[in-house]
């Protein structure tokens, strides 16, 4: 169970990891802004960090949209189909 311990260790250091991750993310955006765009196929190709923003927005949108869809429309009890079969 060495692997389990490794994972446990990583979890215990999760704040360190989070910082590292955030730093690298900032770096990514920075590089994207600094580097000239490779293409100009879409208008947003020129905007540095667009992908980061879009990823965040997409994720948030999916979370909320799916939740909305589920609660307003699609969710049923797990035995929904059972009574009829």
């Amino acid at each position, binding site marked *: 169970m060495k*692997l389990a311990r490794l*994972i446990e260790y990583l979890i215990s250091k999760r704040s360190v990891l989070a910082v590292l991750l955030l730093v690298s993310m900032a770096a*990514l955006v920075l590089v994207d802004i600094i580097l000239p765009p*490779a293409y100009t196929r879409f208008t947003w190709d020129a905007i540095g960090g667009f992908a980061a923003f879009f990823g*965040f927005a*997409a994720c948030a949108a*999916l979370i909320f949209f799916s939740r909305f869809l589920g609660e307003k429309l699609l969710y*049923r009890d797990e035995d929904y189909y059972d009574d009829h*079969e």
Partner: protein
Amino acid sequence: MITSDWLHPSLVLIAGTLVLPLLKGRAMQAWMVLLPLAVLGTLWMAQPGEHGQMAFLGMELVTGRVDELAMVFGWVFGTVLLIGAIYALHVNDRVQHVAAFLYGASALGVVFAGDLITLYVFWELMVITSVWLIWRRKTEVSFNAGFRYLVIHAVGGVVLLAGIILFQFETGTTRFEQIDVDGPAFWLILAAFMINAAVPPLHAWLTDAYPEATVTGAVFLSALTTKTAVYTLIRGYPGTEMLVWMGAAMTLYGVTFAMLSNDIRRLLAYHIVSQVGYMVTGVGLGTALALSGSASHAFTHILYKALLFMGAGAVIHMTGRSRLSELGGLYRYMPWTFVLYLIGGVSISAFPLFSGYVSKTMIVEAAAIDQRAVIWLMLVVASAGTFLSTTLKLPYKTWLGGDSGLQPREAPWNMLLAMGIAAALCFLIGIFPGMLYALLPGAVDFNAYTMSVFLKEMQVLLFTGLAFCLLLKYVGGGPKISLDVDWLYRRGGPRLVGAVGSAIITTDRAIRRTTLEHLARLTAHVEKKHGRDGKLAKSWPIGSMALWTAIVLAMLLTVGVYRG
């Protein structure tokens, strides 16, 4: 089907499978591993060209067409059969093994079919073999789900049959090349392919049935059916505009519903829909790059999706639970499964260095080259969603998150081995994409590892992760199921069939009863009136006889004598 330079892999597999029921224990296990290897061997020996031609019922069959496109799928099918077989080694259910191998043989048969008749035969075989992988879970739910799966595919089958027959009439040939006819033949065949490719709204069979399949069966299912459909779409419908939009819509549909799923394999199943959406989009785009992207994405998808299903399956196998809401904190007990699953997760999410990255970006890039802004955005949203549920939500809720109190043991060695092989391949392809590209038809002019692609992909993924962490408490889920179009046939269809059937039976019975009643009444009446003592039958007194005689005589005489 056999010539000196061609041995049909399906034939090898079918023949080998027929031996399987006779074996036991170790011998059976050895045979199970040997069979896929033999298939890979026959693929190795296969020479490009057309093999196994024959005339049958007035039609020209080509049972073995070997070209690069077919071989891409052939290789990956062979590989996943090997992985799946190893994963299933511990299972002591011959029916499942036989079904799985015959299913694989059928999928290979479709891929190597050079004409639509052969394709159709294997297409149907695929259905009736694969359904056992669902049924053999032997629960009431899997029983019904399998049945629905069967019926939907039967619909697909008959639509395909009709399409092929129309196609034959219109073109005079049954060769399977790009389907370039107008009219119903085109649409019918397309619809049949789309059913198997699980294009919404024809997808619900997949998300309905796969989560109910056996642990090992789901691995084969996830790999074969939809991917043969992708193969047929690539072959038959490249550049069909409609598919671009349907594919992109699929990607979003899949990820959205995946968010709603509580069952781990249903979640993954929705991601099959989503991932196949990329491939369908690629087919629709129809450019060389897009088609290569579709083919290679199918290839990589089979491996990482198999890996994901194996991971999820291992959890189900060890814990007996499949709902996210009932799992959690398993990393201590099943760490290897966790890590291997994560490799699948990052592969499907298209992290650089893993296989999804080298194939999905190809399709996204093709969309970009084609200047399809909306499509591009949709695909990116979908990739964010993919990462969100398969790599973040699912592992978080299963292995991390709150402790569910479960203390399962690690998965058996053969499961881990199979997962390990799949993971290794995912990694290998991620690092050496050239190996995959070399298999594709035509030269691939694409490099996934450019700064631009890398930056975009990493930004999307990591900020998705950020959003997940921040919005964790809003992430949906819970012990619920969500409706999908399968409602139509789980609720609507049976009601309709029931109503029509009742109507017919009632009418029939009513008509029959009324008729019989009337008949009986009539008979009774007649019997009474005309029985032994009825008017006609009773013994008449002599007077009456004489009267009748007189009447007849009088009539004759009147007419005869006085008529003049």
